[in-house]
């Protein structure tokens, strides 16, 4: 076993994800604790060029293959399994994403590596991998360890500011040939289905008023819409609101929705499940109103009010309008 810390690089449509830089940021801290190098694993169809942006890593290992081009985790898994087998790093970091979640468990079983999920913080202490995890919908913090290592970690989005993983540098870039036959991949990619266009593009809004389960019924949406109108903002939402079909999927912020970075993100009645926080945590200013003081949204918000949204939101809309007038 080496003492290296490996990080899986994730990219979509030729762009590195924020999650990648977050992992690099964490890796940057953990690698010295482990006493090894920070190695970025870059897999894809034509990805050599992306290596330049991975300055935070000491080494970039890249694998290029036609079959790695699509969103088929199984292909990634086969290549990664071979690679990790050969390199046997101390710790491998994967993002809690559509891709990462389809890899970690399988690698854990295939390589007989212990793994920890829902990681918010990571460290290597006395040779053990120690993670702080947000479990039970953010209602409990669990400190867990993999004694000795090696191990795998599924890291929650937002565990580390992405900027910490964006640094200049000149890592060694090495190509690795896959040691496995990708023809054996059983899952076949058929195509991408884009969300229907035509609605407001919430990723381009300066101000978002975002509404969650706390709004309780569709008929209450106008209360929040009024505030959005007063602020000149668009309305976005967390998953439950879209699942109820109160708003179209194009308004969903979070894991399976959009990632947004407005100047103001006003979260109304959103508890702040990790899947949601993933899509909005980088907003310039986050203000949260929720009646549940335990709601994890208050951990990510800059300002919070433990209050009933039906009380505060109309008052706030009024106050904003008065100011405008």
């Amino acid at each position, binding site marked *: 076993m080496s003492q290296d810390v490996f990080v899986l690089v994730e990219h979509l449509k030729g762009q590195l994800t924020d999650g990648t830089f977050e992992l690099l940021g964490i890796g940057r801290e953990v690698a010295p604790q482990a006493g090894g190098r920070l190695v970025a694993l870059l897999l894809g169809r034509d990805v050599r060029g992306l290596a330049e942006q991975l300055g935070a890593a000491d080494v970039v290992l890249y694998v290029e293959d036609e079959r790695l081009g699509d969103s088929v985790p199984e292909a990634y898994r086969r290549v990664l399994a071979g690679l990790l087998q050969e390199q046997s790093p101390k710790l491998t970091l994967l993002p809690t994403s559509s891709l990462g979640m389809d890899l970690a468990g399988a690698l854990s079983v295939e390589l007989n590596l212990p793994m920890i999920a829902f990681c918010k913080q990571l460290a290597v202490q006395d040779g053990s991998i120690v993670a702080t995890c947000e479990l039970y919908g953010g209602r409990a913090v669990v400190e867990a360890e993999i004694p000795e290592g090696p191990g795998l970690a599924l890291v929650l989005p937002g565990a580390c500011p992405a900027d910490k993983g964006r640094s200049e540098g000149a890592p060694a870039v090495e190509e690795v040939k896959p040691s496995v036959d990708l023809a054996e991949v059983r899952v076949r990619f058929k195509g991408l289905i884009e969300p229907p266009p035509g609605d407001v593009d919430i990723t381009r809004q300066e101000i978002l008023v975002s509404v969650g*389960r706390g709004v*309780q*019924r*569709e*008929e*209450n949406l106008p*209360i929040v819409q009024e505030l959005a109108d007063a602020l000149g903002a668009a309305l976005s939402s967390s998953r439950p609101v879209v699942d*109820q079909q109160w708003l179209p999927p194009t308004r969903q912020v979070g894991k399976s929705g959009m990632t947004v970075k407005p100047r103001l993100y006003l979260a109304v009645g959103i508890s702040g499940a990790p899947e949601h926080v993933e899509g909005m945590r980088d907003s310039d200013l986050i203000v949260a109103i929720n009646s549940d003081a335990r709601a994890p949204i208050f951990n990510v918000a800059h300002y919070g009010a433990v209050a*009933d949204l*039906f*009380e505060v939101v109309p008052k706030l809309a009024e106050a904003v309008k008065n100011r405008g007038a």
Partner: protein
Amino acid sequence: MTVAPPAKSSKQAVVVATYATLAAVPIVAAALILAVGTDLGDAGREVMWNIAEWARFLLYASAAVLVIVIAYGYYRRYELWRLGKPESRTDNWAERLKAFLIYGIGQGRLPGDLYASVMHLFIFWGWVVLFIGTAMLTIHDDFYHYLTGTTYLGYSLTLDIFGLLALIGVGMALVRRYLMRPPKLRLASLWDDAVLLWLMLAILVSGFLVEGVRIAATELEENPDWAGWSPVGWVIAKVFTEAGAGTGLLQDIHQAFWWFHIPAALAWIAWVGYGKVAHIVLGSANIFTRRLSPTGAQIASAALQPITDFKNPGVARLQDLTWKQLMQVDVCVRCGRCEGDCPADLNGSHLTPMGLIQDIHNYMSEVGPRLVAAQRKDGQEAVAGERTIAGDLIPADVIWDCFTCGACEAQCPFFVEHLSFMVGLRRRLVDEGTLDTQLSDTLMGLSRYGNSLGQSEKLRGRWTEGLDFPVKDVRQEPAEYLWFVGDQASYNPAAQEVTRAVARVFNKAGLDFGIMYEGEKSAGNDVRRVGEEGLFELLAEDNIQTLGECQFQTIVTTDPHTFNALKNEYPAYGGQYRICHYTELLADLLENGKLKPARRLNHRVTYHDPCYLGRYNGVFDTPRRVLKALGVELVEMGRSRERSYCCGAGGGHLWMQETGRGERPSENRIREAVALGGVQYFVVACPKDVSMFQDAVKTTGYEEEIAVRDIVDLVEEALEVEVPEREATGSPRESASAMEV
């Protein structure tokens, strides 16, 4: 908005006056005869004058055939009703006979629409008297000669006047149907409504013509003193003689009219066995077999009996209804009165109580005979054209739109029990899983946590933390009153403030009371109303068990829905309790001096009767007694007491997505209250009402004009119990919807 109709007292006066007039007719006739004297002793007429002798036999033969024809008509319907399940409606004959006399013969449910009431009274009594007159004539002619002299003249006058009234009534009906055209008459059928009405007109007119021509030919000259006792006939006779018709011509005309009048009348009589006219018999039968208990005690009706056939719960086929329900769909005459106060109708729903009954009626008429035939042949096989009633024949959204407020039932002149259909239909939909997700989440929460707000049961008694005295745990120590708090009052922040006020007032009155804390579960009233019968049973069984472990004398609750379930529906599960609504307890405490108002309140208020307290359980006067004791000026809304207008939360609607496309019922209600003028407070006596109407006051923008207050709030104000500094009253929205967390 629909403007609230004026108070009904003036209407009642007109109906009473109409009755008095009708009753006066024979009396006046008799008086007149006495006044005029006795020299008319030989007055009388030849029955079937100018008509061939064989026609008499033809007439009697036709009458015999008619009896068979009518009997066959009822037999056909009876066969259809027999498709239904059994249900006992023949207990307590005395009470049933009384109902028949009051509501059948007495037309006791008329005062709704004044015009229609007078119209119907004229037609009804006109027809009754003409029918009796004809019968009397038959007896006179065939058995015993008695219609002579003054008796004959009085008879003649009375019949003429009632005939005229019937004519006026039919005329009013024609004007209403063709000129006034109220929307509730939209479901008119060509034969049963249009042709029938014109036929009645034709019968009356031709009858008068027959009479008039006969008078012209036989009385006008020979016995002019008699002719005036048939005033309408006399006028017609005059017209014919003035026109110069000779005896021969008059005889010909008379025969023509007679031969028109008699078949028309026979046709109408045959109609009694088939179409709309059957309501004379079916309406009476339905009134006779009506549910005698108040609406709330619906458990008496088979429609709300626990499900026994789990493979086939609720109403899918005609056979799943009871004979009584099937009979009811045949009774409906499409008068539309059930729609008048229906909140779903106003709310823009496709649901109308009349439409529901008519749809099933039409369906039964079409498919029922095939089912009867199939049953005769080979049992219960499905037949061509059969549809699932819940969800197909009656669309699911229509079934869910009902608020179960009971306003339709309170209006129906024949006591059709619309709600029994609703619950049966919903049971089917629940079984199939055809319910909105908000409702299914609520039901899941109810089965898991015992409350409709999906909160932990451990928090049920937390509202007591805001009190400066402890509230007994009646599971631990006995108390005279066991307060069954209910979900909304326990959990909903807006209602909790009222709940604490109730506790303070009880405490002030020195009442020995306690609550069950987390031992209490939702009473399940509306769970049953949405058709989740199994969950209702579960909740009832759990509550009955916990109640059985507590020592108390009387249960008190603020929630009319809980009140209804505990009072009327728990006994069937072995839970027999003395139960009162807090307004009843407050009235007693105020009247026996345990609560002494420190001052009279000078507010001008109106009071909203909660459906499940008033219509369902007949508690109308007690809350008004409380208000009277406080000294407030009570101004009644047009729709009060039995006509009270639903807040829109009933029947599980608090737990469903709002589907209304029109004005919310609660908003309509607030507008009604504001229209009274100068009413400061809209007083309610139900935890759901507080939030529903506070919401409506905001959305209608009447916050300056009117405020919603619970009745206990006023009691506390009058007592001047020190009220802790209040937080701003909870937003109604939060309360209206805090259930779907």
